[in-house]
């Protein structure tokens, strides 16, 4: 199903390989676009994989899981946030607050933003942090964006360097405006060919993770390229980069093109933070090729994201809950797909369908286009934009012994509720079709071939 072209990746301790290029009457060091972003952000002319640099952060984001950021900030002797105008807070994981403790955490974070002069506080209901930052113009090609969330890799689909950190690293960013990074190796994944009916970006990435396994990209940047990726709408490209963290990736990348700029223009972004492009002679230590046409509607069986199976193999299993939402599978395209499938039909008796738009903006557009009405009439339940039950906190956690199909990204034991619940990660098309029948169903059963 895939061809590995090269694998001579260097270990951590080897001297990085420097390639030189003759151009404009001088020698240039060959670099990848993401290396150029890190180099420029750390005031260097060049960097190479394995090197440690201290880079200034363009945009920092703290979400509401992380009151620890504030605690660590003060423990680090912080008195003022160095760049309040580059700092954002998004309340998404506990939105609106499900418990007194979560409400108290929100209150303390609001107070912190007020005290530090941080104006970009996106309170409850604005959406999941990555989508919110994109929609409010914080993400542009070439920018270095750090968030307290592992799925920050999502932003690579717009040519940004997006990476997640923990609370204390974020506290250091708030205090100092910068953080150290190890320049990652870049692993290239080329996808060519036209995907078959019922196959979405989610199926492609589940197939890739299931083939290469969940630790294949630890500490690396994963770049997606090829004719399939070029043909995908930006919303679908975001899914590929979002889930690259499930392979261990530090960041992801897709070279921006006209589609990227059209997508960003709707949010008022018309200029790159740094105009970067990978040098033509750049050497990829690892490169993998996939044929999209050969990939079927896929799912991750309960337990781990690389537990790959064709949807067909799991058909007939009863589903208690279907969840369509999150930074992986809650964008307009995902809700539109569900609406097309469920138009004029009803969710099966004995199955619950929960839909949570990834952002307020997605919710508004889904309303304007009639998707929300269609889905409500089919029996779906809508909830406040945010992360929802993805991390098992609220808005639809699952009981012991139940089976859940989710368009989110993770099915670790206990992730969405009980340790004894079974979670299948699927595409929005598979989720909607399975909600219709009440059992796991291949979307090709209802989609025209």
């Amino acid at each position, binding site marked *: 199903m895939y061809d590995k072209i090269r694998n001579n990746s260097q270990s951590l301790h080897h001297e990085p390989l420097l390639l030189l290029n003759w151009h404009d009457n001088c020698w240039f060091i060959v670099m990848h676009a993401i290396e150029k972003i890190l180099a420029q952000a750390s005031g260097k002319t060049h960097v190479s994989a394995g090197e440690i640099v201290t880079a200034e952060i363009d945009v920092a984001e703290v979400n509401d*899981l992380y009151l620890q950021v504030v605690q*660590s900030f003060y423990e680090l002797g912080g008195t003022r946030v160095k760049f309040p105008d580059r700092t954002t807070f998004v309340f998404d994981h506990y939105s609106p607050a499900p418990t007194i403790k979560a409400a108290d955490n929100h209150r303390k974070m609001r107070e912190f933003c007020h005290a530090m002069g941080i104006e970009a506080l996106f309170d409850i209901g604005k959406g999941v942090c990555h989508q919110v930052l994109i929609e409010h113009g914080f993400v542009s090609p070439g920018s270095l964006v750090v968030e307290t969330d592992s799925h920050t890799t999502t932003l690579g689909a717009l040519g940004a360097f997006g990476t997640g950190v*923990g609370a204390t690293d974020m506290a250091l960013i708030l205090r100092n405006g910068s953080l150290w990074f190890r320049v990652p190796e870049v692993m290239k994944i080329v996808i060519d060919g036209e995907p078959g009916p019922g196959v979405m970006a989610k199926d492609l990435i589940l197939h890739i993770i299931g083939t290469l396994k969940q630790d294949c990209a630890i500490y690396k940047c994963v770049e997606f390229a090829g004719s399939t990726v070029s043909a995908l709408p930006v919303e679908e490209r975001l899914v590929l980069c979002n889930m690259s963290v499930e392979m261990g990736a530090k960041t992801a990348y897709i070279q921006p093109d006209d589609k990227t700029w059209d997508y960003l223009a709707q949010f008022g972004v018309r200029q790159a933070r740094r105009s970067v492009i990978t040098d033509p002679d750049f050497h990829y230590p690892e490169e993998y090729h996939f044929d999209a046409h050969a990939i079927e509607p896929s799912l991750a069986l309960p337990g781990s994201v690389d537990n790959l199976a064709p949807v067909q193999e799991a058909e007939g299993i009863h589903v208690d809950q279907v969840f369509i939402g999150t930074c992986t599978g809650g964008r307009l395209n995902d809700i539109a797909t569900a609406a097309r499938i469920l138009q004029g039909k009803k969710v099966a008796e004995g199955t619950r369908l929960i839909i949570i738009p990834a952002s307020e903006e997605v919710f508004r557009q889904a309303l304007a286009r009639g998707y929300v009405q269609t889905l409500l009439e089919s029996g779906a339940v809508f909830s406040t934009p945010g992360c929802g039950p993805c991390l098992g906190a609220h808005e639809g956690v699952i009981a012991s012994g139940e089976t859940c199909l989710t368009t989110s990204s993770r099915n670790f034991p206990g992730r969405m509720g009980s340790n004894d619940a079974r979670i299948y990660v699927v595409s929005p098309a598979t989720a909607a079709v399975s909600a219709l029948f009440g059992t796991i169903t291949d979307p090709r059963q209802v989609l025209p071939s």
Partner: protein
Amino acid sequence: MKIKASTIYCFGNNIDTDQIYPGRYLELTDHAEIGRHAMEGADPDFPRRFKKGGIIVAGSNFGCGSSREHAVITLKNIGVAAVLAKSFARIFYRNCINLALPAVMIPELDSFGLREGQLIDLDLAEGTLATGDKIFRFVPLPHDILELIEKGGVFALYKTPEAG
């Protein structure tokens, strides 16, 4: 930095942060409270059976999944002295260094043949692991990182309030 006669607790590959610290406890902020739920997703009995000062031994990709720092806070607060794994997920690894939990990457860990409940001596600076009758060697953490861990993590670098 030496750890003597420490009990080891063995786990497999891809132990994610939901297994280390389940999402349902993420709203907690008190470190002692966070410490009561260590490894509950992987083994609900772990907080009860764990002896303070023990060492976690795991396979590849330990700490994958979410960026939650609670995963390191819980291990530190229940008293885990070190985590040895074939490889670590990067955010978890960074969090360990920042919070001074020794996390040692030992790709050849399988060949040590370690068993659940075994007592080991660990010398982090020398890079040795002794099981009573055998001594194994591994690449130690860099000197600067060890020093940072000994001082209590990244907080030690910023003891005085910033100027201006």
